């Protein structure tokens, strides 16, 4: 049986602010926004082309807002990805080179941190 890692809960303090950030600035698609009750709201967001999504909301996670530090997305062109994010107003780092790829970093309004990686060429 497949066990697909398809959803990561991201702890945020202000769901509307975070939803606006992830959709209009980070460029994620808004898949769902369901308010089940006063205590439960489920907002699912997916980076374009990704098989894995994030969830923000109320009653979604008891982790401290901003405590997620290690989300990583893979892109084909780090400079273009950086330009896209910066063009939509995301405060994104300069491109940093590591042996395992080229990276930029950004954070959401609560301080949850994301890395964007362009993989190094596979052929030597």
């Amino acid at each position, binding site marked *: *049986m*497949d*066990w697909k*890692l*398809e959803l990561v809960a991201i702890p945020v303090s202000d769901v509307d602010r975070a939803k606006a950030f992830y959709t209009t600035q980070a460029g994620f698609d808004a898949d769902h926004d369901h308010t089940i009750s006063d205590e439960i709201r489920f907002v699912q967001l997916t*980076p374009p082309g990704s098989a894995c999504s994030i969830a923000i909301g109320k009653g979604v996670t008891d982790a401290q807002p901003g405590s997620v530090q290690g989300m*990583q997305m893979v892109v084909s062109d780090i400079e273009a990805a950086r330009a896209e994010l910066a063009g939509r107003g995301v405060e994104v780092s300069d491109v940093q080179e590591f042996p395992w790829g080229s990276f930029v970093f950004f954070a959401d309004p609560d301080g949850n941190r994301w890395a964007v990686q362009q993989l190094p060429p596979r052929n030597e």
Partner: protein
Amino acid sequence: MDFKLELVLLPVSDVDRAKAFYTDNVGFALDVDHQPNDEFRVVQMTPPGSACSITIGIGITDAEPGTYRGTHLVVSDIEAARAELVERGVEVGEVRHFDREKGEWRPGPDPEHGDYMSFADFADPDGNTWVLQEVNFGKGT
């Protein structure tokens, strides 16, 4: 351009213990275990059939161990998945589903096996929590 969410860095306090848990008990495949020096280690593991992986290690995240909550693993048969985990020694909560009419959690899988309706919970040795969720019952692999 695609932005593929492919990696989640999980904060753990004991890398070997967590690696053993995720590979031997949970059944993730070990992709990479790379340690160039004492301050840096990357252990990447992937759930079977998943497009997204997890990484644990040293010097990769400053998040507090055990603070990641509610990461979801989608399976096609939640009772079989739970049984598999229990057999390998993982403490998994009972399967539960959300009764939309009553607006409350009920024991057992959703009677209709509706997508995203049935859940079961477990935690790693540091307390990072996971949720099994059933999708495509009777149709998946």
